[in-house]
């Protein structure tokens, strides 16, 4: 992760508390999870749970490349997911093997992300977010109306000859592993440092020679590609597509929520976030279908108020607290979080009513 980047000076990114033995944890976890279909090949519930969780993990990690590393929060990823899904569906109906269509779907999504990204990534902060809501919703409505291609409001039925649940489980796990590898590599590379730099200060990064427009668009394309492939996998699994499911705003915000609640800009955040997100959704879906979004809305607000680094930040803080000889817990919020305020207080923003000098509110046990 960070430590593996030889030329990475500590200036750019403050040292964050990390989970124990993080570099080894992920491969070990991956191998253990890969053994599940071997151990319990007939347990459809577990295999389905795994499939959806891994699909969310992969997408959350992919979203985080642009949204977390570069700080461009997009509400429009359903467009990439849907494009990937429909590319796979149409090629599959045209006689292709589904597996071969996945990269094509990813490419279609990546090309679309470039077309959208070149103009919209020039916008900063909230303006980019709003523009992506517009793009995502416009795509959904367009797809609903292109009924000759997408089947429109009646949807598209796909062939029913599909691999086993165990195959899907493994494919989704593989996808999550690829996304993990991509995110980890990007984070430690010069490219990732460039993204971090432009997130912190766009103009300063540009002055220092970071090709910000190129970096943003490449990050956008990589994450769109991964999400597009996930869309293809989803289409193969479901064997039925409807523009309102794959292009839905809910799909877009799921990715935002997964990354934010897990921990924006971290590797483990989207993984934790996706696991919790799908578990909660699955648990509440049957009895209270809307409760998981309600719960997530509340969680999002609480996290923004108290722990902007999400569940990963919380985990790191708890780990730091219980590690022998660790500094007391109150030290954590002083580190600039994902939304940390600028180092220099902005004049004109009266701080008199803000309880603590920096974003996160009072922490239980803080003595400051």
């Amino acid at each position: 992760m960070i430590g593996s980047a030889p030329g990475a000076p500590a200036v750019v990114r403050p040292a964050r508390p990390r989970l124990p033995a993080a570099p080894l944890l992920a491969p070990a976890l991956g191998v253990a999870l890969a053994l599940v279909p071997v151990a319990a090949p007939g347990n459809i519930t577990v295999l389905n749970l795994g499939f959806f969780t891994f699909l969310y993990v992969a997408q959350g990690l992919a979203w985080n490349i642009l949204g977390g590393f570069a700080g461009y929060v997009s509400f429009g990823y359903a467009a990439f997911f849907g494009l990937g899904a429909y590319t796979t569906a149409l090629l599959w109906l045209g006689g292709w093997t589904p597996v071969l269509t996945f990269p094509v779907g990813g490419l279609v999504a990546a090309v679309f992300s470039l077309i959208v990204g070149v103009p919209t990534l020039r916008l900063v902060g909230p303006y980019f977010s709003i523009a992506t809501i517009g793009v995502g919703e416009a795509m959904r409505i367009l797809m609903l109306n292109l009924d000759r291609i997408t089947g429109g409001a009646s949807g598209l039925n796909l062939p029913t000859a599909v691999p086993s649940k165990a195959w899907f489980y493994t494919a989704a796990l593989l996808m999550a592993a690829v996304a993990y590898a991509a995110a980890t590599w990007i984070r430690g590379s010069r490219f990732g440092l460039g993204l971090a730099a432009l997130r912190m200060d766009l103009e300063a990064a540009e002055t220092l020679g970071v090709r910000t427009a190129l970096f943003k668009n490449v990050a956008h394309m990589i994450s769109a590609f991964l999400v597009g492939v996930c869309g293809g996998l989803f289409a193969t699994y479901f064997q039925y597509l409807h523009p309102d499911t794959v292009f839905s705003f809910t799909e877009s915000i799921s990715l935002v929520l997964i990354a934010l609640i897990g921990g924006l800009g971290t590797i483990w955040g989207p993984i934790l976030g996706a696991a919790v997100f799908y578990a909660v959704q699955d648990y509440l879906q049957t009895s209270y279908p809307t409760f998981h979004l309600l719960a997530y809305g509340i969680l999002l607000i609480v996290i923004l108020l108290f722990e902007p680094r999400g569940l990963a930040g919380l985990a790191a803080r708890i780990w730091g607290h219980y590690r022998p000889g660790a500094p007391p817990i109150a030290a954590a919020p002083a580190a600039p979080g994902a939304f940390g305020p600028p180092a220099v207080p902005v004049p004109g923003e009266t701080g008199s009513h803000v309880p603590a000098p920096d974003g996160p509110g009072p922490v239980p046990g803080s003595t400051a």
Partner: protein
Amino acid sequence: MFTAQNLISLCITSILTAGLYAVMSYGLAIIYGVMKVVNLSNAGFLMLGAFMTMVYSQVLHLDPVAGAFLNMPLFFAAGWLVYVTLVRRVRQALPIASLLMLFGLWLVLQNLALTVWGSDDQSIITRYTYKALPLFDYRIALTRLIVFAVAVAVMAVLQILLNHTYIGKALRATVQDPQAALLAGIDTERISGYAFGLGTAFAGFAGGLMTLLFSFTPDFGGPFQLKSFTIIVLGGLENLAGVTVGAAILAFAESFAVLFMRASLQNVIAYALLVVALIVMPGGVTSLFGRRS
């Protein structure tokens, strides 16, 4: 298709729609203008305004227009509370933090409404819902006319308040330059609270008026939210008078697009305009002519 009668009738529709669009976007513009916060929860409050109006009409047998007015003080209080408890605490962080927080609030409001009222379409039928007013050769739906008249009247009153009261002037000063306003002794923090309350009050009011025209579900606010963004971006974001211009542009564009494309693609116009306007003219339409000193 392009008969004079059709065109005139489309113009009338556009003007009536523009009134509604303006009142629904005003709150967003005030909040953005004063504190540069993009209020994604506006959609939630629009929706809540509609449902509250339904509750008044069921329980108190209150007319939707009266319900919309009743929403104003309640939503003002709610908005002020949201500012004090949530928004104020993340204003120092990056702008995206407040956007995400208000997005979380929207999710909460929307899904609370889903658990309380379910996902069925709701509507309020009044005695005058299906009435139309004949005007020369045209017939105008009475509800649309009422919504337009009330919206314009309320915005006119607001304009007077903004121009002639201390708080109104302080609010406009904060929109123009928060630092200078602070230097002039304006408590911009307090003004921000009022602005958030006022913006939310407008959302509740517009939501109430909309029950006269549309059926609604807890998902109701989303498309209108995006249209509101289009309008304030077209209007120039910090320019309160620009809201009217933006609303008129969007209403005309939507109405006339129906002549050329499927009606179901109407919303795409708004979203495309939003993206184009954000990229091409961040200063809004009004910045294109004049003021180039």
